[in-house]
């Protein structure tokens, strides 16, 4: 009997081109490289300067998401870019992909969307793969049992040129969610509860595997939300072992294996889960039934608490400066916190299931007169599916705006942003100072909680809204 291995060990071992030594990191093969307009231009420039070409254009896929407008073209047919630089950045990726033979899901492509939404949606993201992107939320793809992580632009260049990276093997952490979630509680709440428990730096140098019955019970969308937020605990890698839910999601998707190849792949993928009796470097157990809908109250994602309560009397993980910025007092009940804007979208929570949850709250209700609400689907496919179900009509009837796909207000670099001083309840991943616009105060929450905040104009527990719907 061979040594029991973790899912991560198995993924690591499969991709070693050269093993690590004391002096040198391992050379690790990358099965799929996703690129977008913001973190790739300087990498392509390095290739040009050094006379190198892209080693595996067939393993490289590009999309446009960060700088792209979510408003439709104007009367002149031109997209309303925030700046000329943004338009030029988009154009640069289009040209680089054409020159190097890389598949680009471009502005007119029905497959375009946020990089971490379309990879899974197209079946490009598969168990057992190594996947990188110049974007920290690449951890999202770990939901399929892939070794997926964000890299910087120099490393984007390394992968373009060699399809490899120099890596040290990270340590492992397992977070086990025992029991079952209560109704109205989502994967986003699990993520915020876990980060609040362990801290924003606890995952550094580690690959986190999410396990336990409450994780097994999640849809792929929920698992993606959970793995997406791994980086907010400091971990580049988040993982969920593949199972029947994973197979059911992938079967029949564009890039998924077909016929006999599918059977072989599926059998292989089912051998990936962590073996019994294996020791992780660190173990954390969380009672899923104890998790309530969460909201953040500080300027780091670990400053989170149940939204039906109050900010911690001792400030919790928010210091005086963070609380002052948020204009939230120690011990203040969340229902006293007034909301100015709501953003439902981002690679964390912009998939069909997320939009359905928001729509369940908003159906037959009105967004508060004091709130501007924006709903931004994660991809063209999500947009089509949502519109086929009439979700856009639910949002628009409630008084929310229904936009075109993109990263939008999560990173606020395409012109979608809040105004100084506004409080934004956002389904995105970062409540950093100024992230959603200079002086904007961000509260992170689930789609249902964000939708309830839009209706109430305050931070409220979404569960009564879900029950009455």
């Amino acid at each position, binding site marked *: 009997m061979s040594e029991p291995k973790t899912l991560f060990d198995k993924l690591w071992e499969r991709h070693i*081109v*050269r093993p690590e030594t004391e*002096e*040198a*990191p391992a*050379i690790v*093969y990358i099965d799929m490289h996703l690129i977008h307009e*913001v*973190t790739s*231009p*300087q990498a392509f*420039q*390095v290739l040009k300067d*050094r006379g190198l070409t892209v*080693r595996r254009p067939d393993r490289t896929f590009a999309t446009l998401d*960060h*700088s792209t407008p979510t408003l439709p073209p104007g009367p002149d047919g031109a997209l309303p870019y925030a*700046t000329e*630089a*943004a338009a*030029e*950045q988009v154009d*640069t990726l289009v040209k680089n992909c054409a020159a190097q033979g890389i598949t680009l899901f471009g502005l007119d492509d029905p497959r375009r969307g946020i990089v971490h939404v379309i990879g899974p949606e197209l079946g490009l993201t598969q168990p057992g793969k190594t996947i990188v992107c*110049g*974007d*920290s939320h690449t951890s999202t793809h770990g939901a399929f049992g892939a070794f997926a992580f*964000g*890299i*910087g*632009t*120099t*490393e984007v*260049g*390394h992968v373009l*040129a*060699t*399809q*490899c*990276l*120099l890596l040290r093997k990270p340590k492992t952490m397992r977070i086990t969610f025992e029991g079952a979630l209560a109704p109205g509680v989502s994967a986003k709440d699990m993520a915020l509860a876990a980060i609040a428990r362990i801290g*924003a*730096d606890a995952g*550094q*140098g580690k690959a986190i595997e999410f396990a336990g019955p409450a994780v097994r019970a999640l849809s792929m969308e929920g698992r993606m939300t959970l793995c997406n937020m791994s*980086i907010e605990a*400091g971990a*580049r890698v988040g993982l969920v072992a593949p199972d029947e839910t994973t197979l059911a999601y992938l079967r029949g998707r564009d890039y998924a294996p077909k016929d006999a190849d599918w059977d072989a792949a599926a059998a292989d993928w089912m051998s990936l889960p962590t073996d019994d009796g294996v020791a992780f470097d660190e173990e954390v157990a969380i009672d899923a039934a104890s998790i309530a809908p969460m909201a953040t109250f500080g*300027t*780091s994602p670990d400053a989170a608490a149940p939204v039906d309560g109050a900010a911690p009397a001792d400030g919790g993980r928010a*210091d005086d*400066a963070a609380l002052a910025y948020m204009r939230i007092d120690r011990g203040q009940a969340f229902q006293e916190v007034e909301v100015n804007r709501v953003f439902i979208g981002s690679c964390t929570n912009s998939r069909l299931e997320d939009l359905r949850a928001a729509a369940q709250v908003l159906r037959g209700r009105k967004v508060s007169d004091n709130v501007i609400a924006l709903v931004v689907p994660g991809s063209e496919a999500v947009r089509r599916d949502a519109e086929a179900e009439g979700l856009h009509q639910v949002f628009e009837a409630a008084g929310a705006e229904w936009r075109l796909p993109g990263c939008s207000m999560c*990173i*606020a*670099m395409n012109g979608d942003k809040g105004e100084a001083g506004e409080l934004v309840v956002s389904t995105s991943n*970062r409540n*950093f*100072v*100024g*992230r959603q616009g*200079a002086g904007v105060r961000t509260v992170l929450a689930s789609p249902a909680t964000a939708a309830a905040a839009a209706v109430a104009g305050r931070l409220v527990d979404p569960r009564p809204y879900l029950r009455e719907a």
Partner: protein
Amino acid sequence: MQAMSKITTRTVVLENENVDTDQIIPARFLTTTSRAGLGAHAFADWRYEDDGALKADSLFREDARDDFGVLVAGHNFGCGSSREHAPWALLDFGFRAVISTKIADIFTGNALKNGLVPVEVDAATHADLMEQPGVELTIDLEAMRVTTPNGGVDAPFRLEPFARRCLLDGVDPLGAILARDADIAAYEAVHG
């Protein structure tokens, strides 16, 4: 990247913990296709008034950037986004090293590849340095120690050995992968 073995410079102290890369360079400056000139936007929201004038009470030494080349920051520096624009901006501003009790993984990797030295020290050393803004110190990549000339601070630190070798030799790590082309081709022959 230039070879380096020792950095002697003075400190700028940022007491904040969890300084994320959105603070180091806000996302609105990421629409560039170049890596040059980003120092103008380093800590933009901390350095500039709304009208674009430099803040009078800024922590940053605009007049003597090259003399104050190490940032001493609170725990978990560089967390958040993977944007390499963050170390590009710090280097272009004049910083050559960052000292904290913890520096985020992706930021650390990005910094090392550009010659910005990420130095993690123990809590007591960190507390000492936080109390002495502007102190001159030396980061020695041969001895792997941070010292102040008055002898008040003399602490070890670690760097990943290969990354350290690249800094000492001024060598780009891409060459190390390109040199293994045969191994990569062999892997591809088996795995497709």
